[in-house]
């Protein structure tokens, strides 16, 4: 190893805490600069300077080391190698650094610069800032260093390089070593195989099913074993023989399970209890040759506790691993990988209660593991347990990566009686776990398929948290919130603030040829989740709405939900909600959509009428109030003006203007009255569905609107109750002036009769423009009279219109796209059966964005 001529080669792991040890003047800083990146090095002198303006101020030492440890901690947490340039000749100083390395689960490495005291003193004397350092300091350093040398490994350094003398220091080179667990360069494809426990026959069958021929896959795939090859089953030696030969020939990787670990200790002569199936392995191995046993011992000793594979996208270990331990190296990581985390409690069978780490997992890498037998392998938060209890008569399961396909073979028989029944569900259960505040609070970024990363600001999340917590329906029954919609660009036509010509022009500019104009209903947005029955609702959406424990007993419970655009129950009266859901359910059945769409539930986007049903508070306090006040005041004012005019006072202009005001106020009153009618129970309530958002296993948000409307029409046709109302529509070709004119006329006619307006949508639903950006999913064109409710009774007066035309749409448009992308994301996550928190994250995001500051009149 030592070759003085060529210089020593010092291997240093790529993620480690490197501690340079040497007296003042031994050349540590020079050595560090020569072999490491400047940003990897933290020197105590530099930190002394940071806190005291003087690199040699010894009174600042304590604060300086606090800073040093803090910086080193941040780097190690981020997975960056760190070199500490301080004397570190005292064991106490080193102990703190070793603790730091352990905290972040990285290897502590010592490089000792053992340089004669005279050399150190000479070098210091040559430096102006250290010239007056007493000789006794260097003497003390050297003394302490000598005393330390023998203990370094025992102190916990996993590698110790001692360089003796100036020449050895100067000639040494550092090479960076990868960690054993870092196989990110291997991209597979892989077949990851769950706990085998001596089921050699099942293993051979599974390997055959996966396409391996005598341990080799013709397409060059690599098998990865998650451990627990041995114990309990009928032929642990056979399994070991197969796995070891595949690993040896480079056709397989293997991580150790707790059973290998225990068996390995047995082989090394440690005293272990022959329980949990070890006795069987020992007995079976008794018939094997000494060489084979030795091979097994060597194989088990060499196993690495976990692997990071495929560019960091895949982590394989036996018992699961939280993200902060991925690629780390410490005893804690190893024990975590082998045994998993436990809560410290034991269950009624005397077995340790496992900590549900996967429920909290948020990492980007998929974690594939085994260890806990489950009846079915299911994904939870990007983790999957492949132990399907082959030895207990379950099955042996493999996961194809990156295809994410599951392949399994049934156990030939029950080889070993389980101590307790297999858990009936994956860790965390079907719903995942209860929602956690960390899923939604604070500044967050939500990854979406259609629009990348969408940020949510803290103050918006705070407002959404209040509304979600205090007013919303149960989040399990709230799988979607509708996005806001931008209005058409401002019209400059006389008398109009909004006009469809701009909407058609905008889509034409975006390259959208075919659009559908859908009548805007005069109600409130409503989302309806309709399940076939309470049982289906409970099965798919959890027992939302009833207590966890009492749900099963009652057999009743909600059969869906009906909520507003901020997630509040649309109706206060649950029985009325159920009555609406019931009518929808019947209609869906009549239309044959349950079977056709192969689903037990349907998520509908709709408008519920009349507006007065929901907005009655607002109507009374704001709209009707304005009508009442204007009605009370203007006749008197007009009479007074006429009186003055009769007396010969010139008030003609004011009289005329006040007359117009009275007419505008009357038009305003007419406008809001169209949105009000009296309802009694469901009498008078109308629901106009315009999109089926999602069904079991499928988001329908991408279904073209003509097909959507065809489905919706079938609902309306089959509705025998008079609840459902059709959505009138007109298709327009944005490049054809004739067609555009017809669209404008249709709008004029509809709004002329007091209609609210229309929404123009690309027929293709989810559409991107030439640059690949999402185009607006819809643009609203509101009617001239309707806009009085938004911009005030007198907005049509020319001087008012002129000012109101300066309105800024960009923020609204961006908001509409971001909310749309989040909504689509929620639907996709719902359709793919992702856990509740993932769906809720996107839904919550929509609500949070709704509180962004944007002109509320747009």
């Amino acid at each position: 190893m030592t070759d003085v001529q060529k210089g020593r080669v010092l291997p240093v792991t790529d993620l480690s805490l490197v501690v340079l040890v040497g007296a003042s003047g031994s050349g540590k800083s020079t050595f560090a600069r020569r072999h490491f990146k400047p940003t990897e090095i933290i020197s105590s002198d530099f930190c002394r300077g940071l806190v005291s303006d003087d690199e040699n101020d010894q009174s600042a030492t304590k604060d300086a080391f606090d800073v040093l440890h803090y910086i080193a901690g941040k780097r190690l947490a981020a997975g960056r190698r760190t070199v500490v340039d301080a004397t570190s000749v005292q064991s106490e100083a080193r102990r703190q650094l070793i603790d730091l390395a352990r905290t972040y689960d990285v290897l502590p490495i010592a490089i000792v610069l053992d340089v004669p005291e005279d050399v150190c003193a000479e070098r210091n004397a040559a430096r102006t800032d250290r010239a007056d350092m007493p000789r006794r300091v260097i003497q003390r350093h050297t003394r302490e260093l000598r005393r330390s040398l023998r203990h370094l490994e025992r102190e916990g350094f996993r590698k110790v390089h001692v360089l003796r003398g100036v020449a050895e220091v100067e000639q040494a080179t550092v090479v960076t070593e990868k960690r054993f667990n870092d196989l990110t360069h291997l991209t597979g494809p892989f077949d990851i195989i769950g706990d085998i426990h001596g089921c050699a026959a099942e293993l051979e069958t599974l390997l055959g099913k996966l396409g391996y021929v005598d341990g080799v896959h013709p397409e060059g795939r690599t098998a990865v074993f998650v451990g627990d090859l041995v114990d309990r089953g009928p032929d642990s030696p056979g399994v070991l023989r197969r796995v070891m030969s595949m690993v040896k020939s480079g056709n397989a990787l293997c991580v150790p399970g707790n059973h290998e670990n225990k068996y390995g200790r047995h082989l090394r002569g440690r005293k272990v209890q022959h329980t949990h199936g070890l006795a069987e392995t020992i007995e079976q191995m008794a018939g094997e040759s000494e060489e084979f046993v030795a091979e097994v011992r060597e194989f088990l000793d060499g196993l690495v506790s976990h692997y990071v594979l495929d560019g960091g996208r895949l982590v394989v270990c036996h018992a699961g691993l939280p993200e902060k331990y991925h690629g780390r190296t410490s005893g804690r990581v190893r024990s975590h990988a082998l045994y998993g985390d436990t809560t410290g409690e034991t269950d009624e069978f005397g077995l340790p209660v496992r900590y549900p780490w996967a429920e909290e997992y948020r990492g980007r890498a998929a974690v594939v593991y085994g260890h806990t037998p489950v009846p079915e392998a299911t994904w939870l938060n990007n983790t999957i347990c492949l132990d399907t209890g082959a030895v207990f008569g379950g099955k042996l399961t493999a996961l194809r990566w990156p295809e994410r396909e599951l392949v399994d073979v049934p156990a030939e028989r029950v080889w070993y009686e389980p101590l307790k029944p297999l858990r009936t569900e994956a860790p965390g259960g079907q719903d995942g776990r209860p929602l956690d505040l960390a899923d939604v609070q604070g500044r967050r970024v939500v990854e979406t398929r259609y629009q990348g990363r969408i940020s949510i600001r803290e103050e918006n999340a705070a407002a959404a948290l209040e509304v979600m917590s205090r007013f919303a329906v149960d989040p399990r029954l709230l799988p979607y919130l509708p996005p806001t919609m931008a209005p058409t660009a401002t019209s400059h036509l006389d008398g109009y603030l909004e006009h469809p010509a701009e909407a058609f022009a905008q889509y034409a500019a975006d390259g959208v040829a075919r659009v559908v104009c859908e009548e805007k209903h005069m109600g409130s947005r409503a989302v309806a989740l309709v399940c076939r029955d309470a049982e289906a609702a409970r099965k798919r959406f959890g027992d939302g709405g009833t207590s966890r424990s009492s749900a099963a007993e009652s057999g009743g419970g909600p059969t869906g939900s009906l909520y507003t655009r901020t997630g509040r129950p649309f109706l206060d009266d649950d029985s009325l909600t159920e009555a609406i859901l019931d009518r929808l359910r019947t209609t869906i059945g009549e239309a044959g959509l349950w079977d056709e769409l192969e689903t037990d539930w349907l998520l509908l986007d709709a408008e519920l009428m009349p507006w007065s049903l929901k907005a009655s508070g607002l109507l009374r306090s704001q709209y009707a109030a304005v009508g009442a006040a204007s009605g009370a005041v203007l006749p008197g004012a007009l009479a007074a003006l006429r009186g003055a005019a009769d007396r010969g006072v010139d008030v003609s202009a004011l009289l005329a203007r006040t007359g117009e005001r009275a007419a505008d106020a009357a038009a305003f009153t007419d406008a809001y009255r169209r949105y009000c009618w009296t309802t009694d129970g469901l009498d008078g309530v109308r629901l106009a569905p315009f999109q089926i958002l999602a069904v079991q296993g499928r988001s329908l948000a991408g279904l073209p609107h003509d097909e959507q409307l065809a489905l919706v029409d079938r609902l309306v046709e089959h509705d025998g109750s008079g609840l459902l109302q059709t959505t009138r529509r007109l298709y327009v070709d944005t490049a054809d002036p004739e067609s555009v004119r017809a669209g404008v006329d249709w709008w004029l006619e509809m709004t002329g009769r007091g209609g609210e307006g229309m929404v123009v949508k690309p027929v293709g639903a989810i559409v991107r423009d030439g640059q690949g950006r999402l185009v607006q999913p819809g643009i609203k064109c509101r009617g001239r009279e309707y806009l009085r409710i938004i911009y005030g009774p007198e907005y049509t007066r020319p001087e008012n219109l002129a000012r109101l035309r300066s309105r800024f749409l960009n923020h609204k448009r961006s908001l509409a796209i971001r909310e749309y992308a989040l909504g689509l994301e929620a639907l996709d996550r719902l359709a793919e059966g992702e856990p509740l928190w993932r769906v809720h994250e996107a839904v919550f995001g929509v609500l949070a964005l709704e509180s962004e500051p944007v002109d509320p009149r747009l």
Partner: protein
Amino acid sequence: MFLTLTTTGTPERPATDLGYLLHKHPDKAQAFSTSYGTAHVLYPEADAERCTAALLLEVDAVALVRRGKGKGRGGAPDAALAQYVNDRPYAASSLLAVALSSVFSSAMKGVCNARPELPGQARPLRVEVPALPARGGPDLVRKLFEPLGWTVSAEPVPLDTEFPEWGDSRYVRLVLESGALTLAEALRHLYVLLPVLDDAKHYWVAPDEVDKLLRAGEGWLPGHPEQKLITSRYLSRRWSLTRAATERLELVRLAEADDSEVEEIDNAVEAETETEEKPTPLAVQRREAIVTALRRSGAARVLDLGCGQGQLVQTLLKDPAFTEIVGVDVSMRALTIASRRLKLDRMGERQASRVRLFQGSLAYTDARLKGYDAAVLSEVIEHLDLPRLPALEYAVFGSARPRTVLVTTPNVEYNVRWESLPAGHVRHGDHRFEWTRAEFRAWAEAVAERHGYGVEFVPVGPDDPEVGPPTQMALFTMTSPKEAKAA
């Protein structure tokens, strides 16, 4: 917006003297520009027997809304509150009062250079305000004007004659008549009382309102039986200004997105009361009961879940036995007020280190809430919809798992003893339910059973032999350190 002033006269004291008093010629229509639009003064009738002056204010609603534009995205904070659809162009709000004082400023001061003797004389006066927004309704209108010597007629204006079920609007048609007051007095009454009656929550108010109130109220306000209400309402508009400028508007936007009134959603904090806050004896008793129970449990580190405005936190701080007090609420507004109440920013370090306030929600599990000795949920559960109670139950008893949990909630049986509470009504607009003693017991015992707690019940307030105490309290104590099996 519009009002008329009418006087009658005799040949000796002609009604047209009104023109001198107002300093506006009866045969002309005059226009004055104000910051909100144009004020017109004209006389529909003017002869010796009867003379009426009309003040018509043309409000530029668009300008009003756009006033705050340009300060950051979405305009200034109050721009979000400002609606183009509002009653200002019609109703007699504070804007009309401002117009009165600027158009008739000398009349209000009682100055008339041409006829110096006139202002001091009382004369028959009739004031008509066709649409006066009156929070408190006709009753309050009478209470405010009658002590000043007016004969009052205040007819409520219906909201919409097509929808009689909607009832009356907040406007009244006000007619005031008196023969014993001077015009200056009348104008000063209107100047103060119109904005006091107005709801006035979103209106801009000048900073020197106190001086203005003192001047305009001279001679009549000090002796007025409703002086306190008048003063607090008049000046509370300044609070509205502060609120709009400093508080978060995210909730306002969420309410707007859902076509709801802001008050429907932003209601975690009680609206400012008319007078100084007097803690109800029951609230005090509740806090005493809680503190007693906490002391008995030996708790040192305490969570106040749903701390609201921080009254309990304040009480707990007074006892050094509580070494760590954490107030959690979902309402940022409540937390802001709590922080103000506790004067957190001025508290000494030692005291401040004992207390923390942060936003949290019991609809979610929260790692920050683990490991405490005790948690208090005082008057919290009834603010949740029943279907969401299980989530709260899990967050508190399943996840946070403090050794002791105190839950208080109203006893609905006791409601019959509240004289002011109409039968069948809940005690607070946001109460989603109120439980009988049996209902509360059933819930609490089931929760305790599910999560490994024991529970006992403590009455708070006078324990009525028939209907029980006004508040019921459950005291949960952990019996099994690990969570019992949830089904």
